[in-house]
């Protein structure tokens, strides 16, 4: 039976042997995982934007004044029947104003003191993600429905981001994969150096009958620790960054939110997984040699 105490002792020996190497590896992990967190935040932002009103992921159809309720119900059915539409929500003028206050802030001069009666009723039409590129065609057909006064979609940069959601997700996945590979490589190199610098120790332990778990567990734990601490530090750093942006740029509050718990857990899991994978590769290399 191998006691955890001895493995910890071996880890401490490793730390004493290469303190700066360990610190640099941790910094590298932190840096790589900061990038991974930023990539996830980017996807989050794009996701929120794509579901915001009047972006290319959604269409706002403003209704003519004095459209009767029966006609509104009929229009809603027509919109729901469209293949590209995933959700239709009727927004009476008061709700519209409330939403604008929510997006822009209640103190914004654009909404403060505005009489809701001057606003039109509207439909907020959310498109299915795969139809985001065809928003112009869909908006045209929505505009032709009787009772629709105006159709709005795409608003500058926000609209472009929303329209490029699938491309952003693809790009983020590629970047994420690159970061993950880099992380595994950094850990692989660090652990490989650690193993080489303690080659004699490993050889002697092998000759004395130590099994692979006893010899290499410290390296696996070391790698997992790099991944865990690096990911926690990266999440904390990016979290602080996002909080700063939220406080100082109120207009970004609508789409800039803290990372979900499951996303944070995914970052930590992937960091630990990739670190241990890198360490396993280094150990396999060492055993093969």
């Amino acid at each position: 039976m191998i006691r955890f105490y001895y493995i910890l002792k071996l880890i401490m020996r490793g730390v004493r042997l290469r303190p700066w190497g360990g610190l640099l590896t941790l910094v590298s992990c932190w840096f790589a995982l900061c990038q991974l967190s930023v990539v996830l935040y980017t996807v989050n932002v794009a996701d929120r934007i794509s579901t915001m009103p009047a972006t290319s992921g959604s269409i706002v159809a403003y209704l003519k004044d004095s459209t009767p309720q029966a006609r509104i119900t009929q229009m809603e059915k027509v919109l729901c029947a469209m293949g590209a539409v995933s959700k239709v929500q009727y927004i009476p003028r008061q709700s519209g104003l409330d939403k604008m206050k929510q997006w822009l802030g209640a103190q914004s001069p654009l909404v403060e003191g505005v009489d809701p009666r001057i606003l039109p009723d509207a439909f907020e039409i959310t498109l299915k993600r795969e139809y985001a590129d065809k928003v112009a065609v869909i908006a045209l057909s929505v505009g032709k429905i009787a009772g629709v006064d105006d159709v709005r979609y795409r608003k500058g940069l926000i609209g472009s981001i929303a329209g490029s959601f699938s491309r952003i997700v693809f790009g983020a996945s590629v970047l994420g994969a690159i970061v993950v590979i880099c992380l595994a490589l950094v850990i692989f190199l660090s652990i490989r150096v650690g193993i080489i610098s303690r080659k004699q120790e490993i050889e002697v332990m092998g000759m004395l009958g130590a099994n692979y778990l006893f010899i290499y567990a410290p390296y696996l734990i070391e790698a997992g620790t790099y991944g865990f601490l690096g990911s926690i530090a990266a999440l904390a750093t990016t979290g602080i960054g996002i909080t700063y942006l939220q406080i100082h740029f109120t207009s970004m509050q609508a789409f800039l939110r803290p990372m979900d718990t499951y996303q944070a857990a995914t970052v930590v899991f992937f960091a630990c997984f990739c670190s241990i994978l890198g360490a396993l590769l280094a150990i396999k290399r060492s055993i093969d040699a």
Partner: protein
Amino acid sequence: MIILDNVTKIYHDTVYAVRDISLNIEKGDLCFIVGPSGAGKTTLLKLMFGMETPSRGTVAIFGRNLAGLSASSIQAIRRHTGFVFQDFRLIEDWTVFSNAAIILEILGKPAVYVRGRVWRMLKWVGLQHKVYERARDLSGGERQRLALVRAMIHDPDIILADEPVGNLDESMARYMMNVFLKLNKKGTTIIIASHRSDPLMDYAKIIQMERGGIAGEGA
């Protein structure tokens, strides 16, 4: 306990380190492998320890053929065997205590037991005042004593010793050889490779080696 059957070890396809050796070492045997330098004593011990694989023939320890065993099974056998290497194979960066304790740690002994056992053994060979010195700072004789402690500390079933007293002064060499004899009387199988004669040989089985082969056997 250790059976070698027509074992041959060839290096680089041409150098015969060990040639057609058949041996049967029983449990509790005290055995000396003697012969001049280059006779193949070290290779023979390494073959018994599973550090070398025979080019031909079979080596069996505890009734198990090493050729058919997995790496983890060979490691398990090593944990019950003590080996004193000719070049000591100490971990140079580690302290005397850590070097002596490592095999007990590998066996998963409790820390309290390890501490007590290591102190007792180091005191026994006169290294108690060097406990926290690094192995690289020890003299040749001290290194050899530490290597002996490491081989014996876990009460192995077999001790394989390659020139175990070569670097010790006469009195310490005598002392260590008597220790081997005592351990053997307790039932430990001891195989010592040596190029010089020793009074202990009177109690031992002698295997005379020459040019990789057995030139003679006797008691």
